[in-house]
């Protein structure tokens, strides 16, 4: 806001004071929100670290069991057993609110199945298929869990970033400019008051 555009009037000063008070209140609230979000973020970060580590371990295990299954049953046996998979996991997407940030809450149908529910017969397969199926079921569960945590973390980060920008804008741009404008108006009003007083004295002196 350029100072030359400001009208040095009392009403403007009152309006500016109101805006400053509002900005300072907003600044305090946004700062508290930012700090709160950062605290939430660190909580989620711990969970994300755990879930990512778990995901990686489960992925490695799944790849390893697949390699073993290919070794024991051959790709033919594994593909043939894979034809038994009859359903894909159903994802139910809900949302929850963390300090104004809408984050996903993912609920999934049961991925891990018992031996009888996997769709292949026990008598025509070996335990290598069971181990591989179990490892991949666990991997899918870990992916679903990670998806929720990682998306929450991403949304929180975006919100922290935007809140930080707003806090900085208020702290270093809006509030200083408003304060400067207020001071300018105050100064101009004081000066105008002094001029008025001087003029009155001059008139009084001439009339005497």
């Amino acid at each position, binding site marked *: 806001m350029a100072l030359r555009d400001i009208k040095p009037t009392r009403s403007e000063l009152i309006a500016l004071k109101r805006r400053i008070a509002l900005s300072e209140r907003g600044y305090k609230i946004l700062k508290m929100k930012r700090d709160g979000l950062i605290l939430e973020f660190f909580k989620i970060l711990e969970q994300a670290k755990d879930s990512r580590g778990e995901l990686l371990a489960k992925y490695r295990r799944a790849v390893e069991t697949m390699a*073993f299954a290919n070794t024991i049953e051959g790709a033919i046996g594994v593909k*043939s057993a894979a*034809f038994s998979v009859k359903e894909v996991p159903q994802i139910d997407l809900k949302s929850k609110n963390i300090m104004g940030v809408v984050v996903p809450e993912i609920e999934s149908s049961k991925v891990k199945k*018992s*031996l009888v*529910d*996997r769709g292949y017969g026990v008598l*025509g397969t070996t335990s290598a298929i*069971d*181990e591989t199926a179990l490892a991949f079921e666990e991997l899918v569960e870990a992916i679903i869990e990670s998806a929720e945590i990682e998306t929450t973390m991403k949304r929180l980060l975006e919100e922290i970033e935007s809140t930080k920008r707003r806090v900085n804008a208020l702290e270093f741009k809006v509030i200083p400019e408003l304060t400067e404008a207020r001071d300018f108006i105050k100064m101009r009003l004081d000066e105008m008051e002094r001029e008025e007083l001087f003029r009155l004295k001059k008139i009084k002196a001439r009339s005497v």
Partner: protein
Amino acid sequence: MTAMLVGPAPYIYVCTRMRVRKSKLIPRDEYLRMLNMGLPEITRFIEETEYKTEIDELGTSFKGMDLIEIGLSWNLAKEYQRILDITPGFLKEFTTAYLRRWDIQNVLTIIRGKMQGMSQGKIKEVLIPAGELDRVFLDRLLTEDTPERIAEALKGQKIYPILARDLPSALADGSLARLENELYKQFYSDLLVDARSGVKGGPQFEEFIKLDIDITNIKSLFRLRGDNLQEEAGDMMIPGATFSVDELQRLNSMENQNEFIDSIKNKIKLRPLLEIIDEFREKQSVRQIEVALIRVQLRQMERMAKIYPFSIHPILSYLEMKKYEVFNLRALARGKESNLESESIKGYLVM
């Protein structure tokens, strides 16, 4: 089963042929040597053996590991068909009956592939026509649009009655697991009927079937216990051998491992099996147990082939050993491809 009047000469001939073929199988030392080879060397080794024809034949359609694996499977299927061609009389009928397990596997693969909307070509890649249903018949099944039509096309085959009975409920349920178990149970039941039909050589065939059923049931028990599955366990057990379904169900519900193993040992009479089962008291993976049981089964089959040199045993023993040669070569190639350690691969080889 119709009786056929044949003299002993064809039996002696085919059993001798089996012994010769068995002697040509890859020996244990060769597997140990292959464990130290890299994938290209193993591939070259396979290409230089009797699998060469199939590898060359399929070379234009497949490449890499898929070529090796499908080549090995094709060789197995062809070898089984060749054996059926030279096997006479009752032995042929027993062998055909025994190879029907491949038909179950192929038919189920086709039905599952169709249910998943897979293309004919993709399903065909995973078929191993080593049973009674040959490649032409399986190709015809592949052209059918729905599982119901596939079942109809199998009218007159041994597996048709179970398919006709259980397929509608399996399709409604979306799972073929129960149907698969029922087909295998019926398969063993048919084998026992054939063996007990009073034909010559039947008792020897029955002896093998019972061994196979016992080993399969024990393997299933360990798998079910590993999964803590109590209900429906009886549906996965095959009756007709040492254990009744009720006994197997009871064994499955035992919580104590030692008690479970003691109970199995009380019923089993086969010495090598008794010895190996004792080793399962210590914690082992289900796969290790399965491999150990397969080894015992093969050794026992070999023993029976020596006791009854002109019976079904030398043929079945060769069929199984040939199957495990293919499985071993595949395991070596796939294991090396996946960078598994030689010791790990060795644990899965049946030699």
